[in-house]
C-alpha cells in the first residue's frame, strides 16, 4: 500500500515567473507534495521518460498569483490579511486546465488539492508566481509523494490467557493493567475474564508483568495468523478501497511472474540452457 498502489501527483513544474523568496526547486518540491483528489484509475501512467504527455496521462494545473497592496489598508496595521492581497500562495490557487476529453472524464470531481489551505509560499507586494504544473501517475517507491496512505501498518492480535483465577480483591487492579474494555469483571462474583471482542484494543503494554502478584496467573502472546491493519488514506482513494487496490497490485505482480515462469518452462524443456554465463 505504501510503495506500490499508484496515485497522481505533480511531477513537472515549469516556472515562468517566481519572484517569491522561495527558490524554484524548493517551491517545485513543495508543490509536488500537495495531495490531489484525482481518482488514479482515470489516469494512465506515462511509460518511460520519453513518453509524450497526452490528455490521458497528464493533468495540467496553472498557478498565477500576484501579491499587491490593498488600497484602503488601515494605517499602522501589521496584519498581512489587512495590508495585502494574496500574501500567501495557497494550494487552492492551483487552477485546473482541462485538456481534450478531460472535461467529461473528470466531470464528477474536478481535479484539485484535497486540502485547499496548504501554504506553499509567503508573498509580499511586487512578488509573483506564475507556473505550469503537470501531474502524472506514479508509485510510492519512486517518490513518497505518490504514496496513497499517510500510514499503513499491521500488528498481530494480542492473545491473553488467564492461567489461574485472579483473587476477587485484586480484580480491579488486574483490569487496570490492560487497556479499557479488554478485561471484564463479573459484577456479582468478581470473576475476571478476557473480552474476546475487545482484545484488539489492548495496547500490549505488558503492564501486568510488572506486578509480582499476577506473575504466574497470566500469559501474554499473539495470534500468529490474525493481522490487524491500520490504514489512513491521504485522500485519492476512499480508505475502504485501499486494500482491494493493494490486492490488485499484488495479483498483477503474480501474473507477470507466472507468465515469465511458464515461458521459462516452455523454453527450457528439460535442459537448463538459461544457466549459462
Amino acid at each position, binding site marked *: 500500500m505504501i510503495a506500490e498502489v499508484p496515485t497522481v501527483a505533480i511531477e513537472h513544474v515549469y516556472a515562468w515567473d517566481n519572484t517569491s523568496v522561495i527558490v524554484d526547486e524548493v517551491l517545485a518540491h513543495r508543490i509536488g507534495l500537495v495531495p490531489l483528489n484525482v481518482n488514479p484509475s482515470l489516469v494512465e501512467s506515462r511509460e518511460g521518460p520519453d513518453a509524450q504527455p497526452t490528455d490521458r496521462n497528464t493533468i495540467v494545473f496553472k498557478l498565477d498569483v500576484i501579491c499587491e497592496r490593498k488600497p484602503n489598508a488601515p494605517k499602522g496595521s501589521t496584519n498581512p490579511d489587512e495590508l495585502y492581497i494574496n500574501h500567501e500562495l495557497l494550494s487552492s490557487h492551483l487552477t485546473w486546465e482541462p485538456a481534450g476529453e478531460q472535461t467529461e472524464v473528470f466531470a464528477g470531481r474536478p481535479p484539485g488539492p484535497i486540502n485547499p489551505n496548504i501554504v506553499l509560499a509567503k508573498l509580499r507586494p511586487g512578488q509573483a508566481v506564475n507556473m505550469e504544473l503537470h501531474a502524472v501517475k506514479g508509485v510510492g517507491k519512486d517518490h513518497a509523494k505518490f504514496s496513497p496512505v499517510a500510514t499503513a501498518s499491521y500488528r498481530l492480535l494480542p492473545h491473553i490467557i488467564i492461567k489461574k483465577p485472579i483473587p476477587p480483591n485484586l480484580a480491579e487492579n488486574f483490569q487496570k493493567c490492560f487497556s479499557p474494555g479488554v478485561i471484564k469483571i463479573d459484577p456479582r462474583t468478581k470473576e475476571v475474564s478476557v473480552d474476546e471482542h475487545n482484545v484488539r484494543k489492548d495496547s500490549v503494554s505488558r503492564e501486568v508483568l510488572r506486578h509480582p502478584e499476577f506473575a504466574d496467573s497470566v500469559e501474554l502472546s499473539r495470534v500468529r495468523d490474525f493481522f490487524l491493519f491500520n490504514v489512513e488514506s491521504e485522500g485519492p482513494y476512499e480508505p475502504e478501497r485501499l*486494500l*482491494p487496490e493493494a490486492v490488485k497490485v499484488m495479483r498483477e*505482480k503474480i501474473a*507477470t511472474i507466472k507468465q515469465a*515462469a511458464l515461458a521459462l518452462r516452455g523454453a527450457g524443456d528439460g535442459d537448463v540452457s*538459461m*544457466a*549459462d*554465463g
Partner: protein
Amino acid sequence: MAEVPPKIKVLHGASPDLSAATYQIYDESHTIGNSLRWMLMKNPKVEFCGYSNPHPSENVINVRIQMYDNLSSLDALIKALDDLDNLCNTVEDAYLESLREEKFERWDEKR
C-alpha cells in the same frame, strides 16, 4: 535506455533436471519474496526454500528452491504462484463480502 533484463532467470548452480535451482526475479522485492517463500514452504514436496535481496540497490530477488524426489522446482514455483493468487482472491472476496454486509465499525475523526 538499457535493455530490460528477463523477468526470471535461472542462476547457475542449478541441477540439470531443475530439482534444485535458484531463480533470479527482476523488479521484485520482499513483498513477493517473503510471500512466495512462505507459499513454497507450504508445499510438502519442497525440501528447502529461501530468498534474498542480494543488495538493496539491486532491483532483484534470488529465490532458491530444492525439491524432494527430483521433482521440478519450476513446477513448484508455478504452483506456489497459483496458490498465492488464489489466496489474494480469497482475501479480497472475504473483505468485499464483509464490506457489503457492513460488518465494520464507523469512526469519525474529531475536529
